[in-house]
C-alpha cells in the first residue's frame, strides 16, 4: 500500500491550476481532500504522474447564497457543509447526507467537489445532487461551462468532466418552503459505502404529494434518478401503499453488483426498503 512516484503541484489560483492541467493533459490529476484518490494510489489502481492540489485556491472554497440558489465551492469540506451557519437550516438534507459519509476525520478532509467529481457510484453526494437538480460549474483551458448533475454521470468513474477540466462550484436550487426530505442509507458500519441509499425531496399540497424527486446511491454503475417512481407518487396520498408502489418502481431500475454488502437480490430489495423509509420519513417531517 505504497503509491508509485508522482510530482506534486500546489497552484494558488484557478488560472494557475488550469495552466498546469494544460501542461499535463494526460497525466495530471486534481487532488482535493485525497480521501478517494490517495487510497486508490496506495493500491496502485491510480497512478497519476502529476498531482495538482486544489487546496491552495481560496476561490474554490466557501458556501454562499446566490438568488434562489446555493453556490458551494468545490473544495468546501464535508465537515463545513455540516457546520455552516445557514445551509443546515435552508437545505437540511445536505447535512443529513454528509453526516452519513465515513467518519469525522474523513469529513474534515473530504470535499463536496471531490465527492461528486470522483464518479464512484458509492459516493453519497452524487445521487443527492441529482435529486436536488444541482448544476456543476466546470472550468478548463477552453473556458467555463455548466453541466447538470443529472447529465454528469456516464458510467463507473466516467463523468462529463473533460481531461484537464476542474469542477469549481456546485449550484443547488433552494429548497421550497415546507418541504420534506430524508437520506436513508443502509451500510455495514461507520466508514462503509452504502449497501443501498435513497435521497428524497418532496412537497405536499392538500394532503397529496405535489412534487417529488428520488436519488439512489450505489445501486448501479452511476447514481440514479428514480424518475418513474417519483412521477407515480405525484397526486397520491402519502401512505404505505403508495410508498410500496414507488419502492417496486425503484427496484425495477436498479442494477447493483454483488459484493461484500450482499448479493444482487438483497441489494435490489434494499433499494426498495430505503426508498420506502425515506419517503415515510420525508412526509413525517412535514407533519412535524
Amino acid at each position, binding site marked *: 500500500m505504497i503509491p508509485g512516484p508522482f510530482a506534486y503541484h500546489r497552484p494558488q489560483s484557478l488560472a494557475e491550476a488550469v495552466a498546469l492541467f494544460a501542461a499535463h493533459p494526460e497525466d495530471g490529476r486534481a487532488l482535493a481532500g485525497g480521501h478517494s484518490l490517495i487510497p486508490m494510489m496506495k493500491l496502485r489502481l491510480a497512478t497519476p504522474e502529476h498531482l495538482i492540489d486544489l487546496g491552495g485556491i481560496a476561490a474554490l472554497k466557501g458556501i454562499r447564497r446566490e438568488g434562489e440558489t446555493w453556490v458551494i465551492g468545490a473544495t468546501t469540506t464535508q465537515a463545513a457543509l455540516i457546520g455552516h451557519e445557514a445551509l443546515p437550516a435552508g437545505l437540511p438534507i445536505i447535512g443529513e447526507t454528509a453526516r452519513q459519509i465515513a467518519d469525522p476525520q474523513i469529513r474534515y478532509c473530504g470535499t463536496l467537489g471531490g465527492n461528486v467529481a470522483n464518479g464512484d457510484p458509492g459516493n453519497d453526494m452524487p445521487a443527492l445532487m441529482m435529486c436536488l437538480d444541482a448544476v456543476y460549474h466546470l472550468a478548463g483551458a477552453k473556458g467555463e461551462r455548466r453541466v447538470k448533475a443529472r447529465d454528469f454521470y456516464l458510467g463507473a468513474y466516467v463523468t462529463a468532466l473533460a481531461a484537464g477540466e476542474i469542477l469549481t462550484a456546485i449550484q443547488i436550487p433552494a429548497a421550497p418552503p415546507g418541504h420534506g426530505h430524508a437520506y436513508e442509507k443502509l451500510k*455495514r458500519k*461507520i466508514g462503509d459505502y452504502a449497501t443501498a441509499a435513497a435521497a428524497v425531496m418532496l412537497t405536499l399540497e392538500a394532503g397529496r404529494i405535489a412534487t417529488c424527486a428520488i436519488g439512489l446511491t450505489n445501486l448501479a454503475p452511476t447514481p440514479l434518478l428514480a424518475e418513474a417512481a417519483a412521477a407515480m407518487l405525484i397526486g397520491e396520498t402519502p401512505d404505505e401503499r403508495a410508498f410500496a408502489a414507488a419502492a417496486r418502481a425503484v427496484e425495477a431500475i436498479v442494477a447493483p453488483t454483488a459484493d*461484500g454488502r450482499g448479493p444482487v437480490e438483497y441489494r435490489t*430489495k434494499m433499494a426498495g*426498503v430505503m426508498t420506502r423509509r425515506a419517503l415515510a420519513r420525508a412526509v413525517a417531517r412535514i407533519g412535524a
Partner: protein
Amino acid sequence: MNEMSETREVREARLQGLGCKRKRVEDVRFTQGKGKYVDDLKLPGMLYGDFHRSPYGHARIKRIDTSKAKAVPGVLAVLTAEDLKPLKLDWMPTLAGDVQAVLAGDKVLFQNQEIAFIVATERYIAADAADLVEVEYEALPALVDPFKAMAEDAPILREDIKDKTTGAHGERKHPNHIFTWEIGDREATDLAFREAEVTIKELISYQRVHPCPLETCQSVASFDKIKGELTVWGTFQAPHVVRTVAAILSGIPEHKIHVIAPDIGGGFGNKVGVYPGYVCAIVASIVTGRPVKWVEDRIENLSTTAFARDYHMTAEIAATREGRVKALRVHVLADHGAFDACADPSKWPAGFFNIVTGSYDFPIAHVAVDGVYTNKAPGGVAYRCSFRVTEAAYCIERAMDILAHKLGIDPAEIRMRNFIRREQFPYHSALGWEYDSGDYHTALQKALDAVGYSALRAEQTARREAFRRGETREIMGIGIAFFTEIVGAGPAKNCDILGIAMFDSAEIRIHPTGAVIARMGTKSQGQGHETTYAQIIASELGIPADDVMIEEGNTDTAPYGLGTYGSRSTPTAGAATAMACRKIKAKAQMIAAHLLEVHHDDVEFDIDRFRVKGMPERFKTMKDIAWTAYSAPPPGLEPGLEAVNYYDPPNMTYPFGAYICVMDIDVDTGVAKIRRFYALDDCGTRINPMIIEGQVHGGLTEAFAIAMGQEIAYDEIGNVKGASFLDFFLPTAVETPKWETDFTVTPSPHHPIGAKGVGESPNVGGVPAFSNAVNDAFAFLGATHIQMPHDAWRLWQAAEALGAQG
C-alpha cells in the same frame, strides 16, 4: 510516615496488590503515543524489504525474472527460492510438524504467496521494484472447498509431500489430507447413539476469520558479521521460541542470537508463528551486512499471515426425552490452507478441541478431526482463545441450543439439567481433561437473575405474537452461552512446542532500596502485564506495585519462557512470579528474624513486614530487610535478594462464564441490534478487576465482530475476498454494543494464587452467545441452525427462506 500508627487498610492499599483496580502503568506511554514498536526502530544504514506476491491461488511457476527489479537504483538484492536453496532456507518447518515455503519456487499455493523479496534503501523503492519482478505462471485449478479436498479428482496441492503416506500426526488418506486425530470411546459412543431416545445432528461451521491486530507483523534483522551475532526485533508473542527456531534454522549459536519483542500492538495469536518475512529479513541482513526491516501492510496481514478457525463441525448429541445428555459425537473437517502452520502444542493437531463436552456431564463422547490442505493462506492460530477452544465452545453451545429447541426445553433449563455439579470437581471429562474447579449452577442463576430472564422470555412471546399479527417487523432473540475454557498450557506431561515443555518463568530481583525489577518469559501485547505481575509481587512480598518494574521480551535478559497466548501468562508466568516471591520471602524471613533477634519460626508475615508473633510493634518492613540483604546479611546467608522460578503447571485452568445476549432483528433489512449483553466471568482470583473488565470488553467486541460479520472468504478460483478494512468487519465504537460485566470467584485449587486467566474467555463465550441469540430469534419461524457470520444480508436471506418476507 509513621509506620506504627498506620492502619492495616492504609498499608494494604499502598501496595496496590491483588484485587486493586490499579491503573495500567503501560498506558502512560501508550496514550501519549510514546510506545516503542518495531516500526519505530530506525538503525543506521537500515534497508527495507518488500515482497512480490502471487496473483494466483494455485499455479505452477515457469520462470522468475528479477532483472528489471534489480536494475532499479537503490535496490540491493532480490531474493528468490533459488537464492535460499543453498542455505536450505527455501522451506522452513512449521510448529505443526509440516514445512512451509519461505519463497515459492515451483508452485504457488495461495493468493498473495511470497515469491521474491526485494531489498532497497527506501520503502518506496522496494515497493516500486516489487512491481517489476516478472513471473510466468501456468494456472492450475484451485481447491477452495475443504469438503472437496479429499475427492478422487481433487487437484493435488502439495507435490512436495504427495507420496508421503504418514505425516507428523499419523496416516494420510489422500495427498490433500494432513491428519486424522481421534479421541474418546468410539464404540461406546456409537452404542449410546443407537440406544438414544433423542438425537440431534447439525453441521456447525465456524468461518475463516483473522485475528487482525492493529499493528501488523513486522521485524528488523541486523547481522553483525564481525561478532557473528544476529539481533532480531519483531512482533513476537513468543520471543524465546523464535530465538530457538532461528538458531536451529540458521546454524547461528543460540547465545549469539538476540531476539527482542518491543511494545506490541495486539497479537491475538497472529504473532505466534514464524513468517517468511522474518526469515527473508534475516537472510537479507546476512547477505547485505546491513539491518533490514520488513513491515506487512494490512492486505498482506489479512491475506497471508495466520488466519483462525475454518472449522466445519458435524455435532451430534444423544439424550433422553427429559433432555439429559448421554453422548456427544463430533466430526470436524479442518481447513488448514496450503501448509499446516497451526500453532498448537506439538501433540495436539486439533488443539484442545476435546474440551468440546463443555460444561456438561457427558458420560461418553468421541471426536474425530480431519485436517486438509486447500489453496488458502496457512495458519489456524488460536485467535484470542486457547487452542481450538472457541471452536469447541461454539460447537457445543450451538448444539445444546439445538437439542433444547428440539425437545421444547428452555435453553437455560437444559444447561442447568446437564451441568457438571460443584461437588463433581475435580471433574474428569469423557474426553480426557481434569477440570480443576467450577460452580456452574450459581453462575448461570446469577446471570439469569441479573437480566430478568423470565420477563425477557415473556416479552419475546408477546413480540412473536405481534410479529405474527403483522404489527412489527422486528424479531427478538435471547442467546445464552455457558462456556468452560481450558487455558494455561501447559503441563510438561502433555504440552510442548518443538519439544520444549510449556512451562513459564519469572526472575525477581529486589534492590537494596526495596525497588524491584522482575522479568518473565511471557510477552504482553496489550494485556497489561507490567501492571498485573507487579500486583502479584506486591501482595506476595509486601512491596508497593509502583516500586516494581516488569520487563519482558528481551531474550538476553528475560528468563526462558514460551510466551503469551492461550490465556497462559497468569496461569504459568503468574504462578512462577508467586513462586519466586515465596523463595524470596523465605530468605526475607531469615533476615527479619536475625534483625529482630528471634528464631525465624517466631516471626510472621503481615502485609508489608515480618513481625514477631504476638508482638506487632516489633517488626521489620520489606524495605529494612532488602537493605540488610545487601549491607549486613546474617552470617551464613548469601547477600542479595533475588529468585528465579520455572513453573511447570500441574494442570490447566478452567475459567468459565455465563453470557446472555438480547437482540432485535429487523427482518426487512436483516440488521441486528444488540439490545443488551451481559457477561459473567469466573476467572478464579481476580488480580485487577479493571484490567479484567478491559479484557472482557475487548474480547466481546471481537466476538461481536466474528459472529456478526467477519469472514476471510475465497472465490472459486482462489481469490481472497475481503482482505481489507473495506470489507473485513472491524467494528467501530458506533457499532460496538454496550457491555455489562459481572463475576463469580471460584479459585483454581492448584494455582499458587488461585487465578485462572481471562484474556480469551469473552471471545470464546461471546461468539456462541451472539449466534444463539440470532438462532433463537428465528427459532419460532422454524430455523434450526443459521451459519455465521450473521451479517445483514445473510440474516435477510434467512428471513426470506423462512417465509418472513411479507
